[in-house]
């Protein structure tokens, strides 16, 4: 999945799950989540759950920090990395099972 696809799906989650109203075309990667979308700390926790469902990933407790959620770019990069990590872990698990 490309980084653009990940970003688009995160924006979809914001619109669908969080019911935020904005024009997706106006969104750029460095848009701050709190400024552009008016997201507060509680809404961000709802975004986390939405992202986990959308991408079928689990964001570990130690990763829950403001740095990741400061703007769309850092969030997209994090989700992309998480997807990669979880796929790698899954493959390693399968390899061990086959052995």
């Amino acid at each position: 999945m490309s980084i653009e696809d990940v970003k688009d799906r995160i924006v979809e989650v914001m619109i669908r799950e969080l019911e935020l109203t904005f024009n997706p075309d106006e969104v750029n990667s460095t848009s701050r989540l709190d400024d552009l979308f008016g997201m507060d700390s509680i809404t961000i926790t709802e975004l986390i759950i939405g992202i986990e469902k959308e991408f079928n990933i689990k964001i570990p407790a130690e990763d829950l920090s403001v740095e990741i959620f400061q703007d769309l770019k850092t969030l997209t990069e994090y989700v992309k990395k998480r997807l990669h990590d979880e796929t790698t872990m899954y493959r390693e698990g399968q390899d061990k099972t086959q052995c």
Partner: protein
Amino acid sequence: MTTSNRFFSLRDIGIFFYLIPFRMAASVLPIGAIRFFGLLMGHVYSALAYKRKRRIQLRLRTALGNSTTNDEIMELSRRCLLNAVACHVDALILNRIGTQALLGNGKVSGLEHFKNALLKGKGVLLITGHFTGLKMVSRFLHESGYPHFGIVKRHADDPGASWLENRYLSPYWSKVIDRTGHAPVFVEDKDVGLRIMKRLRENGIVIISLDVPFSQHLLTRPFLGSEQAFPVGFLRIVYATGAAVVPMVGIGNSSAFTICFEEAVNLREAARKDEFVEKNIDILVKILESQILKEPSHWLLI
């Protein structure tokens, strides 16, 4: 920010004595002597603070209705003031009391409800109000190995306080009295939601004081005969995470306290988060009301 017109008030003298000479004396004098002095101060305060006592009586009358006699209201208001003073005095000596001695002075009930809620592995929100034993609860959880934190509000100007209190005394109070022990989490912090979620994901505990509107998300509900705004942001986190909500009351002080955990709240399900919040805040406000009505003289915000 609101600022008072007054530079100084009589209350400042009391706060000053509490924060400086009395706090210093409490760090060296025998604990029994401090408690005795606190009791004495409580009686003096109860006799002098007639305006506050009158306000408490009116609140109690509204909350308890006409089934309570005037004599009972008077006695309750006197005990409210005594307990409030005892609570402030206790805050000065709490850290001097060892774990075994402290836990020996307390009675904890319903711990199985709390442990059962933790077994679900989604973290626990302890719902309570500002009762006299809140510091005991925190100490009990800490000593028992349960990681937890409470949500507090940063110091803000009180329009009824003098300039001196707002500028110096109140921040100093927060620094030396309220923030001893664990680092608190502030409701104003940008990451407050993330920190709550993180703690819950670690299957930890977050204490929510429902009786103060410390949230950007508020709903007004009937409460003790009038109306009050309640924080509901935490309910949205519960909706998202499935964390357990356990009502809890801690009353008393370090010489004798009780902590009671109730059964986890059977929250009503809803298809939408707003509906979930609307339905369940009513349940939680009723629980808080019943906690207060059981022990009105131990509720510090009366």
